[in-house]
């Protein structure tokens, strides 16, 4: 075996130099999460160790992602191709600013949600492997943000999907099983659609490496007058990712399932999963197929407007707090979709900033409402009340998050909305701007009503006296998220610069391509 290789020149197909240690940063987040998840599965009986190991690993994940972001923003995209094969033969992991910053935001949200779960997840949830599923979910999320290969992206989608099933049915309540069934079937159809598109993509491009696709898209467009193959491809991608991101008209799985699991799980899903869909949509339509996106922009914009308006109306009509937040998540998706539809530099960086804001704020909003529900013993708006008198500090934090989610100053929701408004007015799409404003107004109404009823009004029945007060396990995550939201509302420059740099990297992927093909190799 060993000797037969000697006569063949391996340098044409294999990497011959050792990769730099910093290149490993792009692999390690995902590998760390898989390893931790596997460890937790092995020691499934020692439930007490789970939380310690998982939270340490998530803290390490935050550090790794922060290092990766620092590396990427100072020295440009990082890439590693598996198995020593040269790209595009091997599967590449490639991180640019966009991927790294999303991965960091997701890691922070997951860490804080994991701390919250110390109180929220009971012993039976732990025995069912809550933390193991959480680790695998984060492996899927990190993998999706950092991979540089379309088929590999599909695999990470499936990884996070199957771990999200595990999280959804944690309590095995009939309600959860029903929600999980609807969620599972519709999401599976969505990812199958993605797989079909990958097949078409391979038939057209003959490659699955994103940098290679970005490099070849121009010449394939020039080869033929017929726009049909690439248009079909883009339309299918948009449909598949919109399904994943919960955009109208393929978003009915979200309000059907997101209110059924434990509140920590809802927070993780609302914060992370839909954003993975938006990430993939931005990555594929803005970086790989920008010309075709331009042609579809009216379709995407229409979907964006409907997503926003119908989501906001849905939020207004809900009596159950958790279902209401599900609709607020959908409104955010509409906003990001508007950015994708416009596609200008301001719009894309607005969409990226919105995604970052949404990861933090939606996680926080679920946690806050979960805590409100725990303190009063109900999630029904008609029965909630008296929270301000009972927990003033918690209420102040909630107010910050409620304002941030509505997009009001001085919190982080304001800036992406302004950027998206400016971008849509720049191209004269007044109806898009109007939809953003109207939906923001309706969401403000819905959330302000929650605040009026649940916090200011005296408790209707005077019930729920048994609930224990907020302690550090719930106060720390909510406080940290509220602080993040406030800091980035008052001092948004670093984030604005980052999302602008991320959008620039997508508009001109030459640095991304160079990191995968350093010598400009043409295999």
């Amino acid at each position, binding site marked *: 075996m060993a000797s*037969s290789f000697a006569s*063949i*020149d391996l340098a044409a197909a294999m990497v011959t130099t050792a990769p730099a240690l910093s290149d490993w940063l792009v692999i390690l987040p995902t590998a760390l999460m898989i390893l931790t998840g596997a460890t937790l599965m092995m020691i499934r009986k020692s439930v007490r160790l789970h939380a310690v190991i998982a939270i340490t690993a998530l803290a390490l994940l935050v550090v790794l992602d922060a290092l990766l972001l620092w590396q990427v923003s100072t020295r440009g995209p990082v890439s590693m191709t598996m198995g020593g094969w040269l790209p595009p033969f091997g599967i590449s992991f490639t991180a640019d600013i966009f991927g790294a910053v999303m991965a960091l935001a997701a890691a922070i949200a997951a860490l804080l949600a994991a701390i919250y779960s110390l109180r929220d997840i009971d012993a039976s949830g732990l025995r069912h492997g809550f933390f193991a599923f959480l680790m695998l979910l984060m492996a899927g999320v990190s993998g999706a943000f950092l991979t540089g290969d379309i*088929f590999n992206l599909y*695999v990470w989608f*499936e990884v996070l999907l*199957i771990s999200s*099933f595990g999280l959804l*049915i944690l309590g*095995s309540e*009939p*309600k*959860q*099983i*029903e*929600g*999980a*069934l*609807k969620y*599972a*079937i519709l999401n*599976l*159809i969505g990812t*199958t659609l993605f*797989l*079909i598109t*990958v*097949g*078409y993509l*391979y*038939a057209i491009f003959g490659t*699955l490496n994103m940098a290679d696709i970005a490099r070849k898209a121009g010449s394939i467009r020039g080869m033929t007058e017929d726009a049909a193959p690439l248009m079909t491809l883009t339309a299918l991608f948009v449909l598949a990712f919109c399904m994943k991101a919960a955009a109208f008209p393929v978003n009915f799985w979200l*309000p*059907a*399932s997101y*209110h*059924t699991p434990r509140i920590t799980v809802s927070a993780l899903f609302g914060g992370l999963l839909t954003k993975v869909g938006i990430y993939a949509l931005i990555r594929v339509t803005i970086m790989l197929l920008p010309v075709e996106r331009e042609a579809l922009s009216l379709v995407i914009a229409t979907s964006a407007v409907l997503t926003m308006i119908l989501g906001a109306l849905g939020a*207004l*009509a*809900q*009596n*159950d707090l958790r279902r209401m937040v599900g609709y607020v998540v959908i409104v955010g998706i509409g906003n990001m979709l508007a950015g994708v539809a416009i596609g200008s530099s301001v719009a894309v960086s607005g969409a990226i900033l919105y995604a970052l804001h949404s990861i933090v704020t939606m996680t926080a909003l679920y946690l806050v409402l979960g805590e409100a529900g725990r303190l009063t013993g109900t999630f029904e*708006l*008609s029965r909630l009340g008296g929270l301000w008198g009972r927990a003033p500090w918690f209420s102040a934090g909630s107010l910050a998050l409620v304002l941030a989610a509505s997009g009001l100053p001085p919190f982080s929701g304001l800036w992406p909305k302004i950027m998206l408004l400016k971008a849509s007015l720049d191209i004269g799409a007044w109806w898009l701007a109007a939809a953003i404003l109207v939906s923001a107004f309706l969401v403000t109404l819905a959330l302000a*009503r929650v605040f*009026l*009823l649940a916090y200011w*009004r005296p408790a209707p029945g005077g019930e729920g006296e048994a609930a224990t007060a907020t302690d550090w396990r719930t106060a720390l995550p909510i406080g940290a998220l509220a602080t993040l939201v406030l800091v980035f509302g008052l001092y948004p420059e670093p984030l604005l610069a980052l999302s602008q740099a991320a959008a620039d990297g997508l508009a001109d992927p030459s640095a991304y391509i160079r990191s995968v093909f350093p010598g400009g190799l043409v295999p």
Partner: protein
Amino acid sequence: MEVLFVALIGLFFTAAVYLMLSKFTIRILLGIVLLGNGVNLLLFTAGRITREVPPIIPADTSTLAAGAANPLPQALILTAIVISFSFFAFLLVLTWRAFEELGTDSTDEMRLAEPLDEPLPPMGY
């Protein structure tokens, strides 16, 4: 040859969509399985159909023989089969549990998480 395969894939998709439009979970599940197989066939066809030359480089040369099969779609299909198989197994358990817990396999009657008579939120303060 490709035309035949495309027609077959179309047949698979038609049957799959028909089954998935049913309101009974088990039929939806069968539709998903058919869809998965249709997609695998599609991936296979997308990678060019060739005859009987395995994509293995003989010991004394360093390139593939002419007309060798494309190994990549086969790898993709293998991955897709693994994933769709495990999803199918999981969904089967889930459907069975749903039938046990909810006492129905009709999606129309699954209204526990989304009750029809949910009250509106308070209209005044």
